[in-house]
């Protein structure tokens, strides 16, 4: 991403304005021509730096009150292939590999599951477990009990 790309991301991180010509508003905010804003966003989308552009639902407000962070200790040699398969299932909103910190933390695969009931969220965990199979040595589900803060991506500076 170059400087102009970063300006576009910074100008859109709180969302696009709900005006008939939102990209023109972004153009004004960034000092770029509207055609260039759209072309750059198209390119960032194609490259994967922008995942998607659309209405971002708030799962909690839509009734998905149960947010579980299911964490798995998966064999290192198999975690990337399995992570990609889990992501494709549509059972989790996020699927990440993170480092272990033994003995405090032994899990390397993180999947976020959502349910309108605890059982629904745990059902998704079981479906994920079935795919991970014997590559899993241990797992836990950490349900959230309170949201202290939740805002979109913010760039410092």
């Amino acid at each position, binding site marked *: *991403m170059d400087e102009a790309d970063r300006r576009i*991301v910074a100008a*859109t*991180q*709180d*969302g*696009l304005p*709900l*005006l*008939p010509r*939102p*990209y023109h508003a972004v153009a004004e905010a960034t000092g770029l021509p*509207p055609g260039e804003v*759209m072309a750059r966003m*198209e390119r960032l*989308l194609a490259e*994967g*730096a*922008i*995942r*998607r*552009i*659309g*209405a*971002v*639902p*708030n799962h909690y*407000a*839509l*009734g998905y009150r149960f*947010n579980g*962070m299911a964490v798995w200790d998966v064999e290192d040699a198999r975690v990337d292939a399995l*992570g990609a398969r*889990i*992501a494709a299932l*549509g059972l989790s*909103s996020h*699927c*990440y*590999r*993170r480092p272990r*910190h033994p003995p*405090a*933390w032994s899990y390397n695969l993180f999947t976020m599951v*959502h349910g309108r009931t605890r059982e629904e969220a745990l059902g998704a965990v079981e479906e994920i477990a079935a795919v991970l199979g014997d590559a899993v040595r241990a797992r836990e589900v*950490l*349900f*959230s*009990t*309170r*949201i*202290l*803060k*939740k*805002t*979109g*991506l*913010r*760039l*410092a500076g």
Partner: protein
Amino acid sequence: MVPLDETDRRLLDGFQRDLPLAPQPYAAMAAALGLTEAEVIARLASLQEAGAVSRVGAVVRPNTAGRSTLAAMAVPEARLEEVGGLIAALPEVNHCYEREHRLNLWFVVTAGDAAGVAAALARVEATTGLPVLDLPLEAEYRIDLGFPLRWT
């Protein structure tokens, strides 16, 4: 829970991704949904107002325009209010959750670069006197379609 009608649901089902990169994207959505541009804008505004939609915009790949990490702490029950409030107030923190675990406080720190993230974590440790577990992203497995909503 925010009540949604059939049109709101079609809007959310159809436009969690693929908002057109055209001069009038809401007009293009309106054409697909059989509404007017003004109706689409009004619905998006009221969905945002009600909190059902957090924003209409781009979802950016983590660590693309800055650096972030997931951090976890084991906070004694008696200090949870104090420490949770302190962390949620930090400008570098955009998500902060209490979770059912020995590690009961989880938060995401975002800054312009890795040094900014490290400085924020060091400040949390110094202020609270509690160790922070730093769990930066090593790989993201792509969820391209968004998380499909089930309405019934």
